[in-house]
């Protein structure tokens, strides 16, 4: 869990959310840009998940480990779920659905970082 990674996730998620809202405003469905953005976000999240698991195995434990694991597992599913849903949505609102998923990832990344910093014994 490094702040650098959390910032990278936040920036990517924010850009993806903006791209999603932009496509809704433009009255278009999502395009390749959104798919690449979601893919990049997913890769960053998977790196973060692997890193966190390695640290957990090494013995670093956040105070609230069950919640931390819940967030860790949930956050990697969001870009996938958001993308699948947005791809099946034939209207301009597909971008906003993706933006909701991306925004949630951004918030959850910071919550994960908070949970990690509250390290227990």
């Amino acid at each position: 869990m490094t702040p650098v990674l959390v910032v990278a996730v936040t920036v990517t998620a924010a850009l993806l959310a903006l791209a999603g809202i932009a496509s809704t405003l433009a009255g278009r469905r999502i395009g390749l840009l959104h798919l690449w953005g979601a893919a990049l976000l997913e890769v960053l999240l998977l790196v973060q998940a692997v890193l966190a698991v390695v640290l957990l195995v090494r013995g670093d434990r956040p105070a609230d480990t069950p919640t931390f694991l819940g967030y860790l597992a949930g956050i990697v599913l969001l870009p996938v779920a958001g993308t699948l849903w947005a791809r099946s949505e034939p209207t301009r609102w597909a971008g906003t659905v993706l933006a909701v998923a991306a925004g949630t990832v951004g918030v959850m990344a910071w919550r994960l970082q908070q949970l990690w910093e509250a390290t227990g014994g």
Partner: protein
Amino acid sequence: MAEATGDRPAGEQPAAAGGAGRVLVAVYGVFALAAGARAAVQLSTRFAEAPVAYLLSALAAAVYLVATVALARGGRRTALVAITVELVGVLVVGTLSLLDPAAFPDETVWSAYGRGYAFIPLVLPVAGLLWLRRHHQRTLRP
């Protein structure tokens, strides 16, 4: 919207099947998941610490889940009831948590009108009710 999906006859399409309604379902889904996961963790790991707050978390999660499914599948009346319960819940719990913080030693989704969740729990039921109202008016004049 209905024409674009093409797989359902007009008039039978779920309440929030397409278009802007999808966004509403998406946000409700996120909250059903967030509140549900939070309640599960709270109830399973430290129920004795704050039973009232944690049972409220579970109630909130159930309400979000019902609202999500009802919106997605077109159960207009169910959605209306769930969203109304949600609005009352966030207002009552929000007020009580500010008046009597001791009764709420741990946060719920609805504490302080959903401050921990950027006040989305307060905005969401209003958006949901407005959406249902607009949709209802539209179906009256097909």
